[in-house]
């Protein structure tokens, strides 16, 4: 779990983002390229508690606030490759992710169905080019092999994939059912599909 990964919570980091913006950018870069948990722990330790304070003020509810923090930081972990230090600071990027998630959470709480969603207004996390043009699945691969690969998926990813692709549930339904944030469902789906594709490619 967290072996060897310190969360610098107790250090009471009083630096301002401007002072450590370059440092945080570098950490995000390492997260993107190497999936480095140590770097992510630095980013997480700095931003998560501050985000929680903000969310608590905004939503007035501990559970919602923590959901917002988790969903936001989960996106930071999954989508660090979309951060571009030339376009802005890490704090601005993370703020916009949190803002989008909060906007959608509030809409959901108000039971709005067809509506304007945050991606329509602020496409902060749209994968413009990255994922869309990966090679199509090779149909030569035998079903047995896919079954085998599928077994190798993490249990949590498997559950989400099954609910969506076998039971035909929407991502929102899966989120409600498993009581996890929508963003987590999305990222698990994405990771699982990516992993399956990678495994199929490696096989070639």
């Amino acid at each position, binding site marked *: 779990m967290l072996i060897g990964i310190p969360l610098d919570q107790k250090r009471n980091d009083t630096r301002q983002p401007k002072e450590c913006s370059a440092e945080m950018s570098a950490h995000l870069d390492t997260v993107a390229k190497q999936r480095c948990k140590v770097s992510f722990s630095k980013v997480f330790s700095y931003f998560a508690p501050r985000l929680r304070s903000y969310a608590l003020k905004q939503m007035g509810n501990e559970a919602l606030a923590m959901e917002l923090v988790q969903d936001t930081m989960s996106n930071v972990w999954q989508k660090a490759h979309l951060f571009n230090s030339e376009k802005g600071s890490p704090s601005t990027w993370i703020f916009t992710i949190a803002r989008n998630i909060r906007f959608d959470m509030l809409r959901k709480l108000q039971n709005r169905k067809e509506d304007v969603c945050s991606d*329509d207004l602020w496409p902060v996390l749209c994968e413009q080019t990255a994922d869309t043009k990966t090679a199509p699945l090779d149909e030569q691969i035998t079903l047995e092999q896919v079954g085998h690969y599928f*077994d190798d998926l993490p249990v949590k990813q498997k559950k989400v994939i099954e609910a969506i692709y076998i039971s035909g549930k929407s991502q929102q339904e899966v989120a409600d059912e498993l009581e996890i944030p929508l963003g987590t469902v999305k990222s698990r789906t994405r990771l699982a599909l990516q992993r399956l594709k990678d495994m199929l490619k490696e096989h070639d």
Partner: protein
Amino acid sequence: MIKLHPTDSDLVDFVEGTLSPAKSLLVSAHCDMCNCCREKSEIFTEQLASKVFDEPEQSTSILSDFVNMFSEITEDEELASTNNNGILANPSNVLQQIIKNELRDSRNHPNLTKSDALYLDGRKFILPKTLIRFTDRLGEWSKLVGKLWQAQIDIGNGQLAQFIYMEKDGSIPEHTHKGNELTLVIDGEFSDGISQYDSGDYINLNSSHTHTPCTASEEGCLVFSVIDQPLYFTSGWAKLVNPLSNLYFKVNSGQSISISKS
């Protein structure tokens, strides 16, 4: 030249995500057209972000929550333990579904299905990119009284958003507004006895305004309009151009509101 912009406080609310969805849509589309407001929005976003993250953080009591959260977030990528709870479905179905999904995703790719322009009256209107995302939800164009055309976009419960096109010499009888009616001029110009409006102008009209919009422009004029308060669809564009539909007079409870005729 754009003369009318959202207020700074609207822009701040917009970037913070606290403006209503309908109003956010219009502000976002305005920012697509207006460099000045787009730059302001970016600055306001940075300011809000540094307000949130500049504060030194004191709390230590919730450390364990964060430790759990951290591992929850990062363990998604760890390889699974071997137990799969026996819920594994037929792998061939999984493969088929994944392939189907890939195909669907590629069909839904915005660049393939969403048009970046509206074609009307033999003309092509380039849309702000925020509104391009909604072109696949655009209803049919219908011709209305005078020289007006209208097409609605479904943005959900009780919220009306629509494009209105005024042909040359088109006009709308004098009327007032209840609630906030926000209008963005997409292309063309019109006047209303109060002001002259041009492409990009962000027009916020409320009950204190009485006006008579008309366009004398050779090109006609395309506007996009939203009503901020669904209860007040009793006047303005909404009433004049759409007096027949009850659809938009429903509030969230599903209860109909009678339309007052004046």
